[in-house]
């Protein structure tokens, strides 16, 4: 079941319209050979992708249609090889570009040959023709629903059917009662018996009956009890916790749109217990040049006491106090490296679709039950890891099931509590 959300549909239409409009204007001398486009793609990924995308403005401008926009193909070649020289020559287009993009100078790619630049352009042209990737996320969204078993629509249908059956049952029972009454009326009954048969069923008589009182008390007490227990269990559980952070950092932008690898910033995941919130110097790898005018980035600069003139950190550094979202109690030991490096688990398994979150929230419960549940279900990532060889051998000799974390002591207390 693929559902198109309205904005996506409109985007697709828009893209189609754009393609129709602009396709006649493609420059004719850019190659369209598939091999050259493929070469261009790899060159683009290796050299340009850090700052440019085809359909998106990043550090530098979006490159779609650049071959039509720029003064000439030769100008493009000159600019790529040495943008500083072109700007210095007073070229009007180049100067405007330089000023529009925060006076960030493009790296000079003196080593790129003509054919290579043409190949990159061929790739850009190809991508421009294809238009922005529209439906890329939709299958993923639906896959989640599909994995849950019975789809909600079926559930509704089943519920409706059951309600209809129940109503039918009531009606049939009603008919039965009246038929029985009529049958008894035809017999000679004593006055008392007649009273019983014709005793009026009023709401009062129901509410006064001991059975009803018991039922009501039982339901109220049970619900109350459940509410208390649920309340107690939820103490300290902060699922959905999404506090405001001192800097409005967006994972949607960095991890989602720009596809920066999680481990580029959260370096600790590969090494040890703590995933580590990146230190300011990691942010400054890009943000000493990127988006420097943003007030959020200015906060970053203030924290590092960044001196743009000398490109150094000043003496008045003040660490950023991020609000911790994922709080495990001190009595629980959790190690990122064990799960990410050894277990090969994706960040999203526990942290949810982080690449879609503008403000990060706690996606998982982070309760012990949640941990245990996963340890019961998850197969040990033992492939190619000699540490597990003996365990796998022994396990396979005894069982046909895959070796779960539970099977090698993953539920033991001292794995996490010491």
């Amino acid at each position, binding site marked *: 079941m693929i559902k198109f959300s309205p904005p996506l549909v409109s985007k697709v239409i828009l893209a189609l319209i754009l393609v129709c409009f602009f396709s006649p204007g493609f420059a004719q001398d850019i190659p369209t050979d598939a091999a050259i486009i493929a070469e261009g793609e790899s060159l683009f990924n290796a050299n340009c992708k850090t700052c440019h995308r085809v359909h998106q403005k990043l550090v530098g401008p979006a490159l779609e249609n650049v071959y039509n926009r720029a003064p000439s193909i030769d100008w493009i070649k000159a600019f790529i090889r040495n943008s500083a020289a072109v700007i210095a020559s007073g070229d009007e287009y180049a100067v405007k570009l330089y000023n529009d993009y925060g006076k960030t100078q493009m790296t000079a790619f003196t080593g790129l040959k003509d054919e290579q630049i043409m190949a990159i352009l061929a790739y850009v042209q190809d991508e421009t023709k294809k238009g922005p990737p529209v439906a890329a996320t939709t299958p993923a969204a639906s896959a989640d629903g599909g994995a849950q078993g019975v789809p909600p629509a079926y559930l509704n249908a089943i519920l409706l059917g059951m309600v209809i059956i129940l109503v039918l049952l009531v009606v049939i029972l009603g008919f039965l009662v009246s038929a029985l009454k009529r049958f008894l009326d035809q017999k000679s009954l004593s006055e008392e018996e007649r009273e019983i048969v014709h005793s009026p069923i009023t709401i009062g008589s129901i509410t006064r009956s001991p059975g009803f009182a018991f039922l009501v008390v039982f339901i109220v007490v049970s619900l109350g009890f459940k509410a208390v227990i649920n309340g107690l269990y939820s103490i300290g559980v902060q699922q959905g916790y999404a506090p405001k952070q001192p800097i409005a950092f967006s994972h949607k932008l960095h991890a989602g749109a720009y596809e920066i690898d999680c481990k580029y910033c959260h370096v600790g995941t590969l090494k040890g217990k703590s995933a580590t919130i990146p230190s300011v110097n990691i942010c400054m790898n890009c943000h000493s040049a990127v988006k420097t005018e943003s007030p959020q980035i200015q906060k970053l600069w203030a924290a590092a006491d960044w001196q743009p003139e000398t490109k150094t*950190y000043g003496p008045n550094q003040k660490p950023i106090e991020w609000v911790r979202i994922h709080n495990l*109690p001190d009595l629980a030991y959790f190690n990122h*490296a064990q799960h990410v*490096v050894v277990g090969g688990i994706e960040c999203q398994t526990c942290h949810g679709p982080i690449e879609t979150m503008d403000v990060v929230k706690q996606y998982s419960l982070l309760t012990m039950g949640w941990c245990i549940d996963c340890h019961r279900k998850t197969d040990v990532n033992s492939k190619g890891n000699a540490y*597990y060889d003996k365990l796998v051998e022994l396990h396979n000799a005894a069982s046909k099931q895959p070796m779960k974390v539970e099977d090698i002591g993953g539920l033991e207390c001292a794995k996490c509590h010491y």
Partner: protein
Amino acid sequence: MEEKATKVYWKGLDELSNSPEFVKHAHNEFGQPPAPEDDLGHSRRDFLKMMGFGVAAVSLAACEAPVRKAIPYVDKPLDVDPSLPNYYASTYTNGGDYCSIVVKVREGRPIKVDGNKLSGVTKGGTSAQVEASVLSLYDNSRLRAPRVGETKSASWEVLDQMVIDKLGAIRVSNGKIAIVSNTVLSPSTKAIIEKFKAKYPTTEHIQYDQVSMYGMLKANEESFGKAMIPSYDFSKANIIVSVAADFLCTWLSPIEFTKQYAQTREVSEEKRDMSRHYHFEAGMTLTGANADHRIQIKPSEEGAVVVQLYNLLAAKAGRSSVAGGIDKPFLAKAADELWENRGKSLVVAGSNDKAVQVVVNAINDMLGNYGSTILPHIPVNYRQGNDEAMINFINDADAGNVAGVIFYNCNPVYDHPMGEKLAGALKKVGLKISTAYKEDETGVECEYLAPDHHYLEAWNDAEPKKNHYSVAQPAISPIFKTRAAQESFLIWAGETNVDYYEILIDNWKTWFFKGGNLRAWWDKCLYDGVLELPVESSSVSFAGNVESAANTIASVKSNGIELFVYENGTVGNGSQANNPLLQELPDPITKAVWEHYVTVSPADAKEINFSEAKTKYASITANGKTVKLPVLVQPGQTPGTIGIPLGYGRTRAGKVADGIGVNAYPFASVVNGSWSFVATGATMQMLDERYWLATTQTNQTYMKRATVIQETVLSEFKNDPGAGRYRPKVATWKDPNHKVEPGKLSMWKGHDYKNHHWGMAIDLNTCIGCGACVVACNVENNVHLVGRQEVINRREMHWLRIDRYYSTNADVHDLKGLEKAAENPEVVFQPMLCQHCNNAPCETVCPVAATTHSTEGLNQMTYNRCIGTRYCANNCPYKVRRFNWFKYHDNRQFEQVNPAMNTSLGKMVLNPDVTVRSRGVMEKCSFCVQRIQQGKLQAKKEKRPLKDGEIITACQAACSTGAIVFGDVNDPESRISKLLQISPADENRPYGIDKKTGNPRAYQVLEEVGVKPNIWYLTKVRNKEEVKA
């Protein structure tokens, strides 16, 4: 079940005499809180409790978790990763005490000190004091900044200017300046002191040692023409005779000697021989406790014993005998064996009397030990103190002849016998500076306090022995506004280049660098922590005058009660007395904690008639000084002698140590030109004032199960390596004749350990009972310190304890014989920790499954699940589970005794990987599960099987003798598997719990109980003549 009781073991005299006090507590592992006086019906208190609970429950439901911050670095240092430790090789120096170490640093905080295996001197060993020193770094009584006069703090500029002005004035007036220090091991520091002297030529550098070895320096000068102390190599000695030299605990270089000594004590089926150790001493020391034959002498007889030994050997060597001597048991036998083992023997003496040491030198020379067990070509620098120079300085100062004095990291007002006189004399000195890192007893007399860094914060170097160099690098940036004393000296000397680090590198470059890549060479030095250069071998010839020495010795007379003051194995000389880890470490012998006492022999004590724990005060007078101390009865002590440990009676050490006991240094007196720590003619007066000593020795008991210790003698061991083993058999309904091995019986199906099966082997023959492992365990596992009163309440929290058993060969029922035996018992030490039983009795009784079994053989304790029923502790046959009666952290009540968990500075020492336990839960040894998990993770990350030796427990790492071996008994190649010769008991079940050991010495404590522990002990073997019982 029957036990053959050939020997009687007891932990304390209470237990031996089965006193009512002992019986009362024997069944009561933990002290009980007093019962409520009135518990009839519901009281107002109950109502308030219920109300309180109700309110708490309501507010709990409405509460939200507090906002917690995560604060990353701004500019992360390249080599620091949060949650991962860094290790730095460095050097521990405390006066002349030396140890090459590796410091474990987490997020910039040193949290643990381990030994450095690359050092050829200490070879990876540590001591309790070295292990504890990491907490001294976070001592709250440290000086926060330099200080001038009464002002709370001053800037370094102000202090420097004032000091330079005053020094300048002294130079103009040609006044005398003294730099007073303990032994300085650092060659670079000495070079800087020389620079200071060049600027102020009237300066004299005076070194003194708290417990001096000046007599030895002088004796060697007389014997060999050079005032030095040679290196000793106990590992080559078959026969060791020590006359009151406590070389395993305090004498000269105990860490080094412990390692060497253990090598000679190791036995196995292949190596069925070991050294024999004769020990002559008055008070029971750690070394004496480990000796094969311990002979009681009085301190005044030390010289005579040495002379007697000389004469016995001289007769064999055909030399003329000298006057004097006294006959003692085993002396003739010792002489025979020494003569048989010429060149492979060693005689040492602890006396600081030059005459005694000259005779000892003559004996070793006669035995040809120089060049084999004694290496005079590698002199050691541990003790350079000059008693005469120090006495002259104090007298000079008292006469008003000293214009300025700088106390360089020393505290003579407290730890010099003439400290009191010095304190008075200092009033006549114009310029007084102390560089100690706290305002100690000497500092308080000084106007200028220029605090040095703690050794973990500073660059430094050391030369413990000739051509053995060691570098100290900072493991943390200075916590307070302190400054390296070396830099202070240079600034005061008007030098411009004052960066000690640069000077240090420069010195090393000049002295040791032989070309190549300087950077790489220096990095290697830093990485190794040590630099060892070859030493040219040379021989010496003895030229001492034995006759005159013997005459001097003969003039020593015994007189009344002999009082000796000594360093014990915990606080030692008192410089680290403010370290609660050492205060709460039970003394290896007396097992007393937080206590200062006077030790008395049982025979002498009998006249006073009191039990061991509840004792009385005594008033002791010697050398014109009177002190009041509680009496502790010490089996093995020579009658007619009393002993007082040094290191107590601090008044300005800090909250921990101040007010405990009295200062015993003033009891020392000058004999033959050097300090003698013996005072004859002492008097002791019992006072009618009761006192309860805090000791741990009978706090846990095995209820007379006598086979906990299994031992034999070497002659039997040679014939049968399994000698001394007790192999229990039990009766069953099928076989009532006690023929079934308890291991064969089980109610349980047992576990299968498919991957690892952790086990430990502890060799009772090499364990010397020093207690370094206990401190290491405390630091590694954030074990609470509870203080004196809680120890009296039997609530100490140590996960690992060293049980010290006295034993005698006497018949259990021969009461007279037992009493006699108690006069000089044999001693055996047994480290006792959670045995991680495979059929753990604690697990089955826990109502909430808070203690469970792992698939790797660990007995796991889950604190957050524990509800504190203490059933587990009651059911533990080894009494190793400890209960948190209080919240020991963040509790002002325990701030004084447990600063590591109650002050923000102290908390920096905590191991972040181990939970700090709260009130109401049980805890115990975890086999350092955090290290196991870390080691396994490393292997998994590198996609390889775990290597043996990658995971070592904290106690194993601390053990200088290598008595503790930890490892995977499922791995046939592991060290422990090979040592114990482990094989599966059932071929069809190779991963089951039941393992056979092929090592005939290996036994499990209380095997008959059938709990199947994962710890094996190796029998104790004594190299003694069999005594017919």
